[in-house]
């Protein structure tokens, strides 16, 4: 199956199996490995990317749903750590093992796109789908609040 879509600002065409998911297509066909596999069932959020600006779990997003739409991955947010969230993530020294952090940042980016000054409760509600096993949650909240303050 051939799918054409916009990936991080560029039009791409990719040939996959008909039941391929966005996650493995990004990782194994398009070489963007910043998006991670964690559970395969949209339960952990490590694979979170943006589809037309909305946070989605790429592990359960079929390629058929992506046709002619826009996908943004962590690599598309910025590759030089210039995005305000990336700066805040470094400033607060958020990541530990780092494996979930692409998903955390993409989820946070979608949150701030829709609500530039979220309350603590809104942050918790929006971020609750992305698990961090190392336990960086307090710093994630701080980094989002720091970013929102500077927006």
């Amino acid at each position, binding site marked *: 199956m051939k799918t054409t879509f916009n990936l991080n600002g560029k039009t791409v065409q990719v040939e996959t199996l008909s039941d391929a998911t966005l996650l493995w297509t990004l990782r194994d066909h398009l070489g963007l490995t*910043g998006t991670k596999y964690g559970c395969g069932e949209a339960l952990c959020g490590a694979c979170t990317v943006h589809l037309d600006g909305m946070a989605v779990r790429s592990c359960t997003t079929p390629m058929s749903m992506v046709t002619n739409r826009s996908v943004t991955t962590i690599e598309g947010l910025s590759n030089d750590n210039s995005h305000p969230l990336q700066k805040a993530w470094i400033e607060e*020294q958020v990541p530990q093992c780092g494996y979930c952090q692409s998903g955390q940042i993409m989820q946070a980016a979608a949150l701030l796109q829709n609500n530039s000054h979220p309350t603590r409760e809104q942050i918790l509600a929006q971020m609750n789908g992305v*698990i961090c096993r190392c*336990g960086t949650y307090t710093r994630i909240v701080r980094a989002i609040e720091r970013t929102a303050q500077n927006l």
Partner: protein
Amino acid sequence: MESAKTIIPKISRRKFLVGAGGFTFLITTGVIWPKLSAENKTANDGTITAWVHLQPDGKVIIYNPAAEMGQGSMTALPVLIAEEMDVDWSMVIIENSPIIPEIYGSRGFRGGKSMITVGSRAVSGYYEILRQAGAQARYVLLYNAAQKWNVPIQELTTDAGVVIHKSSGKKMLYGEIAEFAKSPDKIPKIPKEQMKQPGQFRLIGKNIPRCDIPGKVNGSAIFAIDIQLPDMVYGAISRTPVNGARPVNVLNKDSIMEIDGVIDLVTLEHGVGVIANSIETAFKAKKQLHIQWSEGAKAANYNSVEAFEKYENMAGDASIKGNVIKDEGNITNALQNAEKTYSSDYKNDFAYHAQIEPLNAVVSVAPDGSSAELWVGSQAPVSARRAAAQALGIAETKVEIHPCYLGGGFGRRSMSGYVSEAALLAKRAGKPLKLVWTREDDIAYGAFRPMSVQRMQAGVDKSGNIVGWSHIVVGTGGRLMTSGVNTLFYTFPNQHIEMRNVDEGVRTKHWRAVGHGPNKFAIEAFIDEIAADQKIDPVEIRKRLMKNHPRALKVLETAAKMANWGTPPPPGRGRGIAFAERSGSLTAGVCELSVDRNSGRIQVHNFWVALDAGVVIQPDNVLAQSEGSIIFGLSSVLSESLTFKKGKVQQSNFHDYNVMRIADAPENIEIKIIPSNERPSGVGEAALPFVGGAVSNAFANLTGIRLRHIPFTPDKVLEALSS
């Protein structure tokens, strides 16, 4: 401060030894060889160490010997070298060292040199080794500058990357020395007095940004699962659902082989592997495998929920003689003669590591089968390399290992079974192969923190002093269950500690702080039960028990003060305190929580924590590790439960194995590091063991009801509240 740059994980041993010009410090029992090349035979005798490479442009490459799994030692360890070498940190580039334990190891558990990253020992294990290496590297620079200027070495000093001759005003950058450096015949061991004293540290104790973080916020950090090789194929394995059973037959082999993209099936001891041309096809085919398994595995009749009753009976069966861990004084007499005695059982379920990167490894075998390369995130790279070599039937020296970042370790990645699997599949494939476990595989064939029953008994005298203390641990998991069972800072005149183990045939393993979690929960909750009955304040009773240990007292009192202990908590909230030690670090935590009496959900509002970990290399990272430990601990205390039925794990993914999510995390965590000049102790797990006791004690403070079975899930809380 500028952060160091990172290059990971491409360095190969050969490349490393040849070097890219410049000056590599290779130190062996007092001798150094500059510009070591592959032809230099002395380099291969196995006794050298080589920590620093200095480039003419002044860049200093420092080699990190430990696995980086989020604990930050990849930055903290090079800081130790840079401190004593007196390097300008902005010039530092950190690379992973080759996996050569004879050179890069620290003292292992069995006395030999080891490169295993476990038990929060990276910084404490390397503290002296790396400071010495840094001091010796600095000596070589001074030696060369002294020769060049023809002045006595004693007249030279250094300042952040510059050698200085004060009386003449001469200065030389480290990079300039790299151009002409020669090795002295012998490098002395630098005595402790000539190394920096804590007051002189420029890097230790400051907050240096972790070198791995920039790559972890833009997706460029490389985990083993991210490795892509030309012509690579993919593997997935259907493993036995009951540990110990073997695959007898694949009943639908033909239809599996007909799936487009399936290349081969491989029968292993414990499962059947699928090799396919994409990971999704490998997963799909694996799921469809219909395997007949052998009968009669030991674990096949194991039901973990029912096992509690058996363990409780065993705890009270005087005819059972378990492993006596401690027996001091006379516990029988002490309990018989006590003014009052107490007895309580505490329990905990199995816990799963749930590291977010499922196990995986990439293996590429040379066409002639004589050598191989391995990409893996491992806490135990030496054993991982050995596992690959054994699976392939080649020498360990023929396997080149490329350590990658670990997407969580927590003890799980100290095992190497997944590497053997990848090697076996790669051998069959004849092509580079990436093996990936699905989340379901990772749980079903996990290796868990053991479940246990803890039978606590104590006797007190007329003043409420605990004169007898008995702690019997019963469960499956052997010595994993007994870490933390000793109360190193509480004095009991008579005590008995014993472990009664049943081998149920299920897989168990170290898990962040392992036995310390359940044991400190039982100890700290039981002390509060006694204190409550004796009407002694929980802080006071602990102060009496640890009165001979000033460091412990300071930690306890600091946490109590942070929490305003002695003032009542806000309405609707309870407070509880607990103390623990782990990997040499002392911790105390006060938990403040509330409970929703309709849902049974516990919400932790505040955790105030004091920590004494000796000299702290990276204070902010110590806070991060402590925050993580508290949340990891709370997760196991409030929600994590893994159970077996007929030997099969009953949970399958994050919908039924509940790890803590952000909305359930404490609203506020405050941690105070006690200043200390003692040598560093471990911090990766130190703030976990007190969590269970602090939560149970806070809940009892709020409700008068004692929770004794981890995890305190809403259903258990409701049941307790209604009883």
